[in-house]
């Protein structure tokens, strides 16, 4: 019965290692954005006459970014849920809601994760997402359309996929990335204003204090690189987080298959979810990377190619379904019960 387990556990461990690298890369990039400015000022002005003690710019930005991350970690999940108009499922009223709750409890056992808080979004388009900072305090939201469109096994597979994200700490990483993008955009706008103000007032003085010669050229090159980094920062971070998000979709699919031992159900569910061409109206662009399928109904996910790949929140659906079907075929073959039509 052990279903691709060894491979999957190795993949999960590799995933966590990669998460750490991604966070480290982000911190290095932030350090350059912050302390790079200090370095340039220090190089340009030398010891004398620096209007800020060395390091202050970087420290201020670090404090700001940490504050932002802490804030988003505390309130991020609620904001996301609020923005979709989700309602909390406390006491199931209908049979459909009861089924959702039961399936969520079943998968919590299979995945070995604590039971998340469940939410329902009133939207006819089938979709689902998970959010939350810790596995112990996570949230799973589904649209009412999902509950209507899928049968029990398919719903189970979709919930399993969401639990995969929770177990992999994808939701945690995504919260961090969202905070990082927010902090950079805010600081860039603030810096833009400060620089414009600075050039208006202190431009003349700076030239007088400059050390001139070769040192000056290094400073100017550094300054240009630094400014370009700031301008491109949100784009770089966005591209990185999208890349992370796509990799994680495949792994979450595989984990759903591990929990349910039934990859074909997820393949069916994905076909149904993708087959409905409506965009999920209640889910905004900012939440897109959390969902099981791109809620904006963009055609990007169906295209392949480098450019499309770089900006899609999800891997091409056809690829995901093909991988699941391959897994299903393998499992059936091993157990010697291939369906007649295969």
């Amino acid at each position: 019965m052990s279903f691709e387990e060894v491979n999957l556990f190795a993949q999960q461990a590799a995933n966590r290692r990669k998460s750490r690298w991604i966070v480290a890369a982000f911190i290095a990039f932030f350090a350059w954005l912050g302390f790079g400015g200090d370095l340039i000022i220090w190089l340009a002005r030398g010891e004398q006459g620096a209007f800020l003690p060395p390091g202050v710019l970087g420290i201020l930005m670090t404090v700001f970014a940490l504050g932002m991350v802490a804030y988003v970690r505390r309130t991020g999940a609620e904001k996301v849920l609020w923005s979709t108009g989700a309602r909390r499922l406390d006491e199931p009223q209908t049979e459909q809601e009861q089924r959702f709750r039961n399936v969520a409890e079943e998968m919590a056992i299979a995945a070995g994760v604590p039971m998340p808080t469940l939410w329902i979004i009133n939207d006819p388009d089938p979709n689902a997402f998970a959010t939350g900072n810790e596995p112990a305090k996570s949230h799973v939201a589904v649209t009412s359309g999902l509950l209507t469109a899928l049968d029990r096994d398919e719903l189970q597979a979709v919930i399993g996929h969401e639990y995969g994200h929770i177990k992999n700490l994808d939701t945690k990483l995504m919260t961090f990335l969202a905070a990082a993008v927010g902090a950079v955009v805010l600081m860039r706008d603030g810096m833009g204003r400060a620089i414009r103000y600075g050039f208006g007032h202190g431009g003349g003085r700076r030239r007088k204090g400059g050390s001139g010669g070769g040192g000056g050229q290094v400073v100017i090159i550094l300054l240009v690189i630094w400014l370009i980094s700031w301008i491109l920062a949100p784009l770089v971070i966005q591209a990185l987080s999208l890349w992370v998000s796509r990799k994680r979709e495949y792994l979450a699919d595989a984990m759903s298959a591990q929990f349910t031992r039934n990859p074909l159900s997820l393949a069916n569910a994905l076909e149904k979810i993708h087959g409905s061409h409506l965009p999920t109206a209640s889910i905004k662009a900012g939440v897109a990377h959390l969902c099981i399928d791109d809620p904006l109904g963009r055609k990007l996910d169906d295209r392949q190619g480098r450019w499309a790949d770089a900006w899609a929140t999800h891997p091409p659906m056809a690829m995901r379904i093909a991988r699941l079907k391959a897994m299903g075929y393998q499992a059936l073959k091993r157990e010697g019960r291939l369906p007649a039509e295969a």
Partner: protein
Amino acid sequence: MVTFIVLAALAAAVFWFIGAYNKLIALKNQTVNAWKQIDVQLKRRHDLIPNLIETVKGAMNFERETLEAVVQARNQAMKATAAGDPQHVAGVAAAESVLTGALTRFMAVVEAYPDLKATGNVGQLQEELTSTENKISFARQLYNDTATEYNTKQEQFPWNLVVGWAKAQPAELWEITDGAERAVPKVDLGFGGKK
């Protein structure tokens, strides 16, 4: 220099030993915990059955045997679980398998009589029963996965050197042969063989 290398190797060995010992203890506890998960779900199923019987009793007079089989299987299963811990996997597995079989036949009967399905909250109970059955099988899956990891570690070199110190013993797997239809399914006691 040589002394230094020997000392470093010794220190590394001691650290590895401590790590391996702790890992085995952690796996042992995980296995016991996974077993408790099954236990919780089995109790849930036992508690659900009187409710179910009560609801359909009036309408199902003609299927006395099926009902009695369920009640009897439940009592047997409850006795087996009362003594249940990872040392008694086989007994619990056998008794619960009989109960699963009886319940499957019972649900088939309910399916066959649309009138019955419409009585009271049979539909709801059916959903509850399906969910409980799933929970049991997922808990079993989690237990088997955890126990397999535990057993594999115990057999692998150099982990097997630590086994005695950690008082680790192979955990019995709850193997099931699609036993729903069989009264007494064959319970495979082999462990660690399938991976």
